[in-house]
């Protein structure tokens, strides 16, 4: 089956001499349907990658294939995609005009869903886009992204500027719509733990490089923290892959790669150690480190 997204050694350089590598050697395949999280710090290359996928920017090296063809200037591919960007430039239109524009371009446009979401996010259809708050503009992007029902939906920071209540609504709407109409959804975000339960697969970019590509289920519980008296912690972590270790006075906290079984928990209880699991956010932060990445992915694969 042809992958929905196939990237081979994709790079994007900026600057007069191509000194800045926004993307470097990104190789990945994503099949549809799936919800994939594109995670990483500011400047990691998330937006650039989404723009390259949507044909809005051009890779300077490598090969980009969407539904089996290069997306750049390819109407047949592009009409199956929508990219909702946090920094989207809009013309001088009203909200209802923006929705009308989207309905013209997408044959699967769901006007009923758009109206429902418009109400849910309390968006004034008659207001000019330039007069919307940042959160309202973001919400309008969400309405377009979901109601378009494009086979490939790309969201770049879709919850930026939204309050917690509206963010929750978005996650609910996204999941409900994806369940009813499975498709390929790729979303970039900083709020990793908030979307963790939605994601089937996680890609982490760091300085333009894809540093982690794993199924979310494999990553969950794939690393743990152990805290307690230094001697006990040292005994517990002996012969295990340790990602980090920090001692404060007589107590030490260590982060270990790998899953813990019942015997591990019994031993921890015996040694009076506290066991905790790393969140996806914490895992993502550590994924930039090559040793930690190797440990996380190799244990996850096993």
């Amino acid at each position, binding site marked *: 089956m042809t992958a929905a997204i196939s990237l081979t050694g994709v790079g994007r350089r900026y600057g007069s001499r191509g000194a800045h590598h926004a993307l470097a050697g990104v190789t990945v395949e994503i099949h549809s349907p799936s919800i994939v999280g594109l995670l990483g710090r500011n400047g990691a290359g998330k937006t650039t990658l989404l723009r390259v996928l949507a044909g*809005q*920017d051009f890779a300077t090296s490598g090969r980009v294939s969407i539904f089996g063809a290069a997306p750049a*200037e390819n109407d047949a591919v592009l009409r199956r995609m929508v990219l909702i*960007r946090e920094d989207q*430039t809009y013309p001088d*239109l009203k909200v209802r*005009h923006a929705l009308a524009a989207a309905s013209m371009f997408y044959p699967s446009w769901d006007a009923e869903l758009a109206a429902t979401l418009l109400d849910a996010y309390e968006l004034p259809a008659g207001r000019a886009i330039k007069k919307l708050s940042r959160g309202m503009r973001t919400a309008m992007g969400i309405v377009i992204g979901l109601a378009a029902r494009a086979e490939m939906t790309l969201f770049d920071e879709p919850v930026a500027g939204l309050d917690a209540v509206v963010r929750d609504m978005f996650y609910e709407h996204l999941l409900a719509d994806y369940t009813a109409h499975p498709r390929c959804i790729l979303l970039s975000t900083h709020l990793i733990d908030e979307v963790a339960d939605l994601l089937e697969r996680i890609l982490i970019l760091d300085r333009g490089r894809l540093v982690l590509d794993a199924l979310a289920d494999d990553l969950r519980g794939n690393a743990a923290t152990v805290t307690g008296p230094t001697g006990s912690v040292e005994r517990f972590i002996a012969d295990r892959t340790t990602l980090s270790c920090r001692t404060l006075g007589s107590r030490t906290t260590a982060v270990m790669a790998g899953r813990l079984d019942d015997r591990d928990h019994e031993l921890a209880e015996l040694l009076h150690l506290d066991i905790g699991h790393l969140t996806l956010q914490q895992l993502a932060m550590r994924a930039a480190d090559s040793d930690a990445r190797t440990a996380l992915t190799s244990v996850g694969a096993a």
Partner: protein
Amino acid sequence: MRTTPVLTVARYLLLDRVTYLVLPWAWSAFAFGLDVAIIELTPHGDGGDHWTGGLTAAFVVVFVLGVQAVARALPFGLALGVSRRTYFLGAAALAAALAICFGAVVAAGQAIERATGGWGIRMAYFRVTDVLDGAWWQSWLTASTAFLALFAYGMWYGLVHRRNGLPGTAVFAAAQGAVLALLAAIVTWAHDWSRIGHFLAADATDAIPAVLAGLAVLLLAGGLAAVRRLAV
């Protein structure tokens, strides 16, 4: 009803009907009122026509429409799954349709102007001496090609602005200013101003539509090539 992608782009741009259809003529009407007021308030001369140049307002707005069609409307169009090529062709198709209609407005305005003795005050609002002063079809052709060329020229400014920002746009404008100044210097040096004057007086009405049409085609063809490498 589903239309071809090029026509869909034109429909997308026309969602902002006020800007594309009303604004050029609202500004033109404002300039018309201003010209009438000025003619009424200034002493009457020797009985000749009062040439105003107020119609320029409509042409300037069409230039601005071209700028914003690329600088502001293009990125959202691309976000909605349109290729640059399709978008540019759609915008150019809309520009051509608008130019034909707006040219007809100018020709009709000119006919009324002639029939009413310059709106009763000998005002030449829809006429420009030696340039837009021929038969109705010549005026229609000249105005239409001028509208199209200005829209295309505006799209170029939009392209440069999206690619190089305000500094790039300023350099772009300054470079054209420098070229024009150089041409003026060459014409002055060659003592050719009188020949240009003779050309405008004798042949301009026939030649200008062809020159403007050629310019519009060049601008659109160049713009299409440039937009295809534009990152947004």
